[in-house]
């Protein structure tokens, strides 16, 4: 198990209007997740398939003795499956005391972004994306969609179960 990146220390003296995000890409789209929800970043993992699970669930993996459910972000966002040679990385997030791993194409860096660069979702955005997006940041040369982790994990199953 390789930890590619240590969880960064909390805000490094940035202005109060700035927020930190871990950036990642799925199908060439840059996305961001608030850094404080991220618990771990992992390289390629052995994922055990869970039969009869919702299609978005890729399976379960072992995070240092803890069982974590992996969500295939591509499938969650209605994107085509990656090529067979693809090596998805895991972004481990925590919600309601449970750990989940988001399988993404690539993990980028930690960015501190100013609120001023943030915009609301364009109303024309695909409804599937809109339901999980908290807004868009204008970066140099590209746009970053901020993902709402709780919404991402709300895949039609009652989480209180």
């Amino acid at each position: 198990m390789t930890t590619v990146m240590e969880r960064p220390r909390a805000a490094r003296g940035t202005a109060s209007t700035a927020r930190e995000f871990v950036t990642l890409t799925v199908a060439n789209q840059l996305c961001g997740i608030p850094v404080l929800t991220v618990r771990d970043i992992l390289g390629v993992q052995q994922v055990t398939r869970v039969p009869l699970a919702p299609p978005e669930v890729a399976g379960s993996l072992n995070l240092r003795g803890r069982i974590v459910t992996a969500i295939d972000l591509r499938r969650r966002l209605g994107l085509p499956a990656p090529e067979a040679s693809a090596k998805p990385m895991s972004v481990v997030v925590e919600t309601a005391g449970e750990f989940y791993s988001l399988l993404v194409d690539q993990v980028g860096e930690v960015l501190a972004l100013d609120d001023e660069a943030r915009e609301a979702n364009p109303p024309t955005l695909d409804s599937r994306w809109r339901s999980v997006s908290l807004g868009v940041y204008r970066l140099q040369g590209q746009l970053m969609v901020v993902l709402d982790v709780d919404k991402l994990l709300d895949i039609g199953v009652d989480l209180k179960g």
Partner: protein
Amino acid sequence: MDDLLKDFLTETAEAIAELDTALIRLEQSPDDAQTLALIFRLVHTIKGTCGFLGLSRLEKVAHASENVLGKFRDGTMTVTTGAISVVLGSIDRIKTIVHDLEQHGQEVAADDSDIIDALNRIYNGEDVDAPAAVAAAPAEEEELPPEPAATEAPAVEAKAEILPPAGPARDAGRDGTDTLAASKQSIRVGVDVLEDLMTLVSELVLARNQLLQLSRTHENNPFEVPLQRLSHITSDLQDGVMKTRMQPIGNAWSKFPRLVRDIAHEIGKKIDLQMIGAETELDRQVLELIKDPLTHMVRNSVDHGIEKPEDRRAAGKSETGRLVLNAFHEGGHIIIQISDDGRGLNTARIRQKAVAQGLAGEAEVAAMAESDVHQFIWRAGFSTAAAVTSVSGRGVGMDVVKTNIEKIGGTIELRSVEGQGTTFTIKIPLTLAIVAALVVQAGAERFAIPQISVVELVRAGGASEAAIERINETPVLRLRDRLLPLVDLRNLLGLPSETDQASGDFIIVCKVGVQTFGLIVDRVFDTEEIVVKPVAPILRHITLFSGNTILGDGSVIMILDPNGIARAVGIGTGTGAEREALNGTTSESVVETDKTALLLFRAGGSEPKAVPLGLVARLEEYPIEAIENANGSPVMQYRGKLMPLVPIDGGMVGSPGAENGGRTRQPVLVFNDAERSMGLLVDEILDVVEDRLRVELNTHRPGFLGTATIAGRATEVIDITYWLRLAYPDWFARKESEVGQGQKRVLVLDDSAFFRQLLPPVLTTANYAVTVVDSAAAALKLREAGEMFDAIVSDIEMPEMDGIAFAAEVRRAGSWSSLPLIALTSRVSEADIARGRAAGFSDYVAKFDRDAVLAALAQVLSATEMETL
């Protein structure tokens, strides 16, 4: 909350639990000085401590009840039920106050004068049951607190006066400190600390397993020896931590004496509760989980298991009912038995109710053994309590009890004898933390199955004898003369096949309750000790899994839940239809005994048809060419004679052609009697299954008795007499016309119309003159009318007068008293046979065992002939 108060609360909670039990004991044996001293000491300690902590409300209540208890102890007042009730009431009040204390960290202001008044009245010898009042008289010699005192005054004054008798109490208190000193070895640890420890140890076990697995791949590994040590230490640590979680089951029982007493009082019953093996230990997690089911069952036994005193007297039992809780260890399990000597389950009412609720057909329940009928009580919403009482009878319960027990990997069974009582036996694992599991593979995935539900492994296919067979796509396995329903794990879980193979090679035989079924898997690996972890909430809706775990090699694996699988495919629910899409089998069970062997075949149409196997002489298959025509009817040469052939429902006759799919061989069911045979032409012989015959006699089609659910499918049961007559219109008439001439007369007695139709053909063909009646009363009428027979064949389970009673009546007196009597029954156990013989039956035969019936008849008749000679 300060530590002092916290300690006080814990101690008080324990003291209260002890008090409840002790007071009930006192009520039963009022002279038990030891118990009395214990109670007094407990109350005194509570009072003393709360005085110290400044809990005035608590102190006053405790004080007032201590006063009363003091009188009991001194012998100046007799212990009565009324007085005990009031003291118990005060204990309840103390509980409430303590509860408030826990919630708020301080006493909640409220008025306790009602309970204190009641206690003081008893103390003063007023307002109590007669005996207490009488006994209170000598008490007046002592200095009593002034009667017209204000609510709080007597408490204070009484305190002053009770001081002298408090002397021994102080001694008792010192005893208490002694025992405390003796148990100084123990410390209080929060449950959460233990839970955390257990989790850590579980993780350690997993890590150890992982290391061991790694080290196995390297020879001459320098880590080997230290690893061995680590492994041993880990195991010891695991055992040690497990021990800290063990608690005596008595902790879950401590409430029962009070519960039983209160309910018994409320509904006017006398019940003696016995608890055996209260010190038997089990994991506290398991203990918590069985508390509620146990409570429910105890309530049930008290409420409608044990009868009222007058009913018990009428039944010739002692007025006081007995309720026994018994716990003991057996293997890695704890067995808990709850038995009462009450009225037992009312089988007749359960039958009625099952029919009324549409759970089963009338013919079906009538043919069921009692023990099977009892199983209905596990169904949701099934309650036979005639009246809904405040205690039970609302039809919620037993199904929940069963589900809860199964949820923790346990089983529950029941045994009940009407009029004698009921015993429930619960078997549960000692701990849930670590279980042994079998690792199997289906498709490309591995799964773990808890070892506790695995009965055996069977290798099918390849060189082995066992082979998976299919009935209409449903896989089954012949296992030691039983048909085992199979569930293809790959299909069930929707997994793609890894190979081209249709089905896996291995069958895991699982037992869930009384149901047994096989899981088809592709590979079987090792057994591993696993730590069951709950699945993520996002996956919790998949009921086929009970959890997941990490194996020694570090991979995550899902743990299959055999209960969930059984439910998903409809095994054990009796109504498999709704889940048939899952390609599971729906056969009720393969382990029960009251089954009939049925031959399933297809003839005209795709739905299966059935005939009791016992009626069929042989199964043959002939080349189509062998079928000839005689006078427009198909015939065939059979053992040197011409045998008429009858097609069922357009079953094929004649030359190979389009309508028979180019078949070249014709399956024939052969029926015969001494000299004649007839063949029934069918399309295909499907299988022989054992199942309950639940015929609904609603078909008006000639040749069919009705439709039954066999192996989960609607199946038409054919009426053999009809088809025999088609071949030989005189098949039966011939025999009837020949009565006399050495022919024996047999009386057949059976309440089931279905059996009445089936038995006569068998007997008639064997050259007996048969008379059929449907009840014992009708049979006895024949006796009064002076009818005479050579032998009687009677069913056992019949309404009103059953076979046993009928036999006793026949033997008692009258013209039939020396006739041979053969019992015909769907269940044959040693006990049944013994019962039957005791009642006067000459022989005992299983229904539908055609040869056995005939052999038994021949034997008893020849025996009587010998005697008459």
